[in-house]
């Protein structure tokens, strides 16, 4: 068992490092997360960086499986009275966490009570806005945020006689798809995370509401509206593209990635967090761009795109701990928000920088000249000041609602359902889940 020996060695080193000075046992802060592999190392280093910077507190970062498992695990632990201090929750769990008043301590409270001079304005509005109440209180601390961006196969574009630039509109995407297919590429474009890309971000990019009450930010009595004529037209057009494989559905989550990296599809819309993986496995030059939009459907400024919204996860603080422990949590959050720490995180993982300072620092270091893909998500999210339709979304039962939207989409793309019927049905079923959530959280 090599790894065990390494662990022992690491433990020995750690023991020596803290050494005799550590007369007082540091206060332990439990931090549960879902970051695996290389990202797990990143989180471990964030914790280590903070632990080495002071002696009072010790962040214990534990990977507890995937996002769902972290959440159910934390809930089970909370119910058994053994909750961790910090948990990483994916963006679809936001409403559930918000509704759990008493079980959760909002981040703005944690930071203000710690008295460490915290300024919520340093965070990028496009990122922090998603997790902030309508009266400006930040509820959770952004850790890893991403936004969908557009990828294209430069080699295939060249072969098809297309200019080496990302299509801006969906019409241009269709033309490119036709040309690609004529040159022998089987499929034009595919996407990952269908609901996130084709409904949630479509709405934000076109400044169309997904639901009333500022997409759920304004209250639990929000009602879905993503079956508007614009949404239906959008879905009908994509379904039409599916018939000729100009668009080809490739499954939920990131299942479709291999379609792009295998050069089966010449274009791809996926999370900016998939960047390094795509660059590693693609056997061709990859170009980047912003998500396309429909000029005839957009309500964005000057008939252009509005801005995109994010995905990923944030850190939530659970209730019922001592003020001293909360102070440790606050200091850790302050530590990971420092420009240099944050910039390093961003450059290492491809997730968005969460503070303005980190973004500017990365620019200054010339990182984006060498790695153009890393800036797209940020540019796209900050295209325009966010409107009530493009701040983000906040719905209860969103895990199910997302699955349901994708389910209905699959019906459309498989040719079993008309776009309108499918979106109507998704809205109706989604509303039922919203009402149930409203009742359960009165």
């Amino acid at each position, binding site marked *: 068992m090599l790894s065990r020996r390494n662990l022992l060695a690491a433990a020995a080193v750690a023991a020596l490092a803290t050494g005799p000075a550590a007369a007082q046992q540091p206060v332990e802060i439990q931090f549960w997360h879902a970051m*695996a*592999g290389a990202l797990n190392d990143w989180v471990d280093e964030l914790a280590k960086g903070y632990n080495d910077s002071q002696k009072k507190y010790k962040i214990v970062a534990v990977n507890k499986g*995937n996002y769902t498992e972290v959440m159910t695990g934390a809930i089970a632990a909370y119910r*058994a009275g053994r909750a961790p201090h910090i948990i990483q929750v994916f963006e679809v769990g936001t409403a559930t966490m918000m509704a759990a008043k008493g079980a959760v301590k909002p981040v703005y409270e944690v930071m203000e009570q710690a008295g460490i001079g915290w300024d919520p304005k340093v965070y990028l509005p496009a990122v922090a806005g998603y997790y902030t109440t309508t009266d400006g209180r930040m509820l959770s601390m952004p850790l890893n945020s991403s936004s969908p961006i557009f990828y294209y196969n430069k080699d295939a574009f060249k072969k098809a006689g297309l200019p080496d630039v990302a299509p801006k509109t969906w019409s241009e995407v269709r033309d490119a798809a036709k040309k690609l297919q004529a040159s022998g590429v089987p499929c034009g474009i595919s996407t*990952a995370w269908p609901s996130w890309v084709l409904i949630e971000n479509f709405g934000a990019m076109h400044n169309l509401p997904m639901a009333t009450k500022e997409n759920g930010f304004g209250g639990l009595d929000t009602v879905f509206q993503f079956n508007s004529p614009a949404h239906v037209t959008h879905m009908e057009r994509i379904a039409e593209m599916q018939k000729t494989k100009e668009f080809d559905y490739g499954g939920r989550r990131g299942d479709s990635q*291999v379609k792009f990296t295998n050069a089966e599809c010449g274009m791809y819309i996926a999370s900016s967090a998939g960047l390094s993986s795509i660059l590693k496995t693609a056997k061709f030059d990859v170009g980047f761009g912003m998500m396309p939009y429909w000029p005839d459907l957009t309500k964005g400024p000057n008939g252009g795109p509005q801005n995109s919204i994010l995905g990923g996860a944030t850190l939530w603080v659970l209730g019922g701990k001592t003020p001293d422990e909360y102070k440790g949590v606050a200091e850790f959050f302050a530590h990971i928000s420092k420009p240099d720490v944050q910039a390093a995180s961003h450059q290492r993982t491809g997730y968005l920088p969460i503070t303005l300072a980190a973004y500017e620092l990365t620019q200054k270091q010339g990182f984006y000249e060498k790695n153009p893909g890393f800036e797209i998500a940020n540019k796209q999210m900050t295209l325009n000041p966010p409107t009530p339709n493009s701040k983000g979304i906040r719905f209860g039962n969103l895990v199910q609602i997302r699955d349901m939207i994708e389910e209905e989409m699959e019906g459309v793309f498989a040719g079993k359902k008309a776009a309108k019927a499918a979106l109507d049905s998704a809205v109706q079923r989604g509303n039922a889940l919203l009402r149930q959530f409203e009742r359960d959280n009165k």
Partner: protein
Amino acid sequence: MIEKQGAGTWVTHAILIVGVLTVAFPIYVTFVASTLTLRDVLAAPMTLIPGPHLIENYSTALFSGTKNGTPVSGMLLNSLIMALVIATGKIVISLLSAFAVVYFRFPLRMVFFWMIFVTLMLPVEVRILPTFKVVSDLELLNSFPGLTVPLIASATATFLFRQFFMTVPDELVEATKIDGAGPMRFFRDVLLPLSRTNIAALFVILFIYGWNQYLWPLLITSDHSMDTIVIGIRRMLAAGDDQVEWPVVMATTMLAMIPPVFVVVAMQRWFVKGLVDSEK
């Protein structure tokens, strides 16, 4: 056979050979994939001739795992512990309760018997949420007891031993009584040796049952150090925004199949007997 061997025999052999090949085909493809690089696997169509990367992929799987996984060697050990504890535990407690039910008369005997029977009607899947809660309340999440103990109760094994004990002649009990031996002596010196074949047969079946558990470990363990190999494979496949590392996943899949398949093939005779006898 009544008829002379003729054309019919060739057809029969053909059917069997096609059957064997169909059954083996997915495993062969998996094996091939575990000897290639990721690029080779992703190049459609994948070759069906094994490549040169066998040792590399298997050692990656065994000692470092995929990017979002843990080394398979640890998982194999977890699976082995789980399978052995479950198989042994089921056999031990079933032997004891079957012995009590068959050789003793005591109040509540039938109540206990029916309580054991009822467990047949409650597979873990149908009561998954409350059972998860019990384990979490007992603080057994992410622990071997939590992983194994709830799966140890076994009505089928108890019934099998009960059936078997019923066939043991009464004279044997009488004889040990005359020798002045107590019930536990009789159990140890007479019943256990007689049950050897049954125990071996059950052991194979229960070992595989334990090794192949999926839903239970999926929920009870979230620490990667506790992953069993079957769960590990699923974690490797859930790569999120990352590419699935097929060669390593396929090497892991081969490693996950070898132990139970070996047990079945090596103990074939007992296994078949045990399966047909226990009717489960």
